[in-house]
């Protein structure tokens, strides 16, 4: 299968899919998708991430052809999809509930798309065998979906979406019904399968760790708008606004007001009177309200000046939760008692006690001044 698949090709100028000013409304009053512009590169693993109702699934359904665009156009390989019905788009899809055909065996489920695409009977068998081998389900040909576990059904659904070698594979929360352990295992497998087949994967999820694990790029949706479209590490380490910072990973939020702004450092005054140095991200002027974002793991516990910390404050330990590989410590600082710090296991500051006063600090570059939302 691999040899006949397209190789990743990120260098070409024309993206494989382009959403051009796409808007979508269901009831004529509320826009579910607001002026969406999105380019999907050939061969990439793109995840649409966002809370429910953010427009991510609608975007996927418009690409699949199950929902019409109210305004704007979707272009696949330079061709408008406006008048192309779903079955002619050459886009495979894995559904949240798998949508395996219960009256067909695994083999017949995989044969169905090949029949639809008029593949010769002899090469059908070969392709089905390859697809089943890829999802490690060789030998399950004669089973019916009801005789498979959830994870196995998920693999069949994936194999079925891949077996006819579509240009793009869409996935709508395909791992949502699996338990945590199986889900994490499947994430890795899907990533490997993506690397092997080299097809474009567009994946919808509300689970940020899933998105971080698998994706080349993640589009964070909220309120019908893409808040940020970036590689996982960019998103996590350099969120561009308060929503992204809060939605991806854990995050300490501190509200304050800009008192000084110069280059890549600004000073933010908190209601408690403390002033913090931070990296200005989407703030523009002095006096503006801002949300400071500080990841729990960038905070140094027991900080001294020589640690390279730009700011050091005194906090009081409120609560400790043992998580195995790290300990979550909730502290009171700046008048808030919900400041969370992660202390890795084996750290020299492991043995904290409730009520203990401790010095905490961080580099100003890790503290991001975002919009006030």
């Amino acid at each position: 299968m691999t040899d006949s698949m397209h190789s990743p090709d990120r260098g070409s100028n024309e993206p494989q899919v382009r959403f051009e000013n796409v808007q979508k409304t269901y009831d004529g009053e509320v826009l579910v998708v607001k002026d969406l512009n999105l380019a999907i590169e050939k061969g990439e693993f793109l995840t649409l991430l966002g809370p429910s109702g953010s427009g991510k699934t609608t975007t996927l359904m418009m690409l699949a052809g199950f929902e019409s665009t109210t305004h704007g156009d979707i272009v696949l390989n330079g061709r408008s999809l406006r008048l192309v019905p779903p079955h002619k788009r050459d886009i495979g899809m894995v559904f949240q509930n798998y949508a395996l055909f219960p009256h067909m065996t695994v083999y017949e489920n995989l044969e169905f798309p090949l029949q639809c695409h008029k593949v010769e009977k002899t090469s059908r068998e070969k392709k089905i065998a390859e697809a089943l081998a890829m999802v490690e389900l060789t030998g399950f040909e004669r089973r019916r979906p009801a005789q498979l576990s959830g994870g196995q059904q998920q693999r069949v659904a994936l194999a079925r979406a891949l077996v006819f070698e579509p240009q793009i594979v869409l996935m709508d929360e395909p791992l949502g019904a699996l338990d945590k352990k199986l889900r994490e295992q499947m994430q890795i497998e899907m990533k490997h399968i993506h690397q092997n087949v080299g097809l474009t994967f567009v994946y919808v999820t509300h689970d940020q760790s899933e998105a971080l694990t698998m994706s080349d790029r993640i589009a964070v949706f909220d309120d019908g708008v893409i808040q940020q479209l970036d590689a996982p590490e960019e998103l996590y380490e350099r969120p561009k606004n308060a929503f992204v910072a809060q939605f991806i990973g854990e995050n300490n939020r501190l509200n304050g007001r800009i008192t000084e702004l110069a280059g890549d450092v600004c000073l933010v005054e908190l209601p408690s009177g403390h002033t913090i140095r931070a990296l200005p991200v989407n703030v523009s002027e002095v006096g503006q309200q801002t949300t400071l974002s500080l990841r729990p793991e960038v905070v140094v516990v027991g900080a001294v000046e020589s640690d390279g910390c730009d700011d050091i404050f005194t906090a009081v330990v409120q609560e400790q939760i043992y998580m195995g590989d790290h300990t979550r410590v909730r502290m009171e600082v700046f008048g808030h008692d919900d400041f969370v710090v992660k202390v890795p296991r084996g750290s020299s500051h492991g043995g904290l006690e409730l009520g203990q006063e401790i010095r905490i600090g961080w580099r100003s570059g890790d503290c991001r001044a975002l919009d006030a939302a």
Partner: protein
Amino acid sequence: MVATTGSHDVMRTADGVPLRIKLRRAERMRKVWAITLVAPLFLFLVVGFILPIISLLSLSIEDPDLTEGFPRTAEMFQEWDGEGFPPPEAMATFAEELAVAGRGEFGRAAKRLNYDISGFKSMVKKTARKSEELALLSPEQMLDGFIKIDKDWGDPAYWLVIKNASSYYTDYYLLWSLDLQRDKEREIVGVSPDRAIYVDVLLRTIEISFAVTLLCFLLGLPIAYLLATLPTRISNLLLILVLLPFWTSLLVRTTSWIVLLQNEGLINDAALWLGLWNEPQELIRNRFGVYVAMVHILLPFMVLPMYSVMKTINPWHMRAAASLGAPGWKAFLKVYFPQCMPGVAAGTLLVFILSLGYYITPALVGGPSDQMTSYWIVQNMGRTANWGLGAALSVVLLLLTLVMFFIYNRFVGVDRLKVN
């Protein structure tokens, strides 16, 4: 289960009672309660349904008219081998019993003999009136005496009819209901073509039932699909419309079709006015009318099981099929329809079996050549009071229904059926 040898091997509860006995005691109350709940209906079914059916069906193998009317004659004729003429003693007994038979028994016996040769009834009556003449004769003169009263007694066929009607249990009616009879040699042969009607009626019954089922399926499938895919609010409203016919009596619905379809009916008047045809068309008292009325009445029985199955089909399957490259019709045929099969099977079986027993509708809107087996059962049970033939036709209809059911079970599997 391995038998336990000693009491030590038996599992016991804390107070020493074996576990199994304790369990049985605990379950007993529940069983008694379940039986109590079922008992009234069970008794009703036995008394009101099973026993009458058995007694009615048993009429089809009974031939009591002669054995009750002329008991001794019947006995003696049974011993006769059927060659030529019966022994003179038998004839003499027949003459005696003709003279003394009570009016009711005599009438029934004469009517029974008339089934085989028309005119036999009046011949027996005539002979009975003149039976004093026979009483004076010796056995040897008996045949001549009979022939003197009516020359037809010289034909052995008449005597054979009496013999054939002389045994209490008979296959006579069952054979009759299939247009068959036994000839002189007791071989089963077909009846003369002018008497053969019941096989035609049976085939017609199957044909009409099949056509009605097919029409119901073709009309019901889109409705059921629509009901299953529309939003619940609208589909509930439509479902009420589907169920609406159930709120009116069958007779009213059938007669309203007469009003609509008759020569001066709404449809003919409208078509004449619109110029669709120039003279009233025969829309009723023919097969067309039967189909229209029966399909209308039976359609809900097709729609409801299909709807209830379609409702359970995952609507995402159609989208999945489309994403895999199947155009709408192919997705429907290959993915959606096979999953409807339990409902389709239940609906078609229901409509077919109900059609097999239809009586009122064909009787009211059909012509003479559209009457089904049920019509002839009613005819024989009612008008001509031929209970044996009526019961035999019922047996044939019941067997046909069972055969259809088993054929169906063979191909579809009744355990896969789904009704509401």
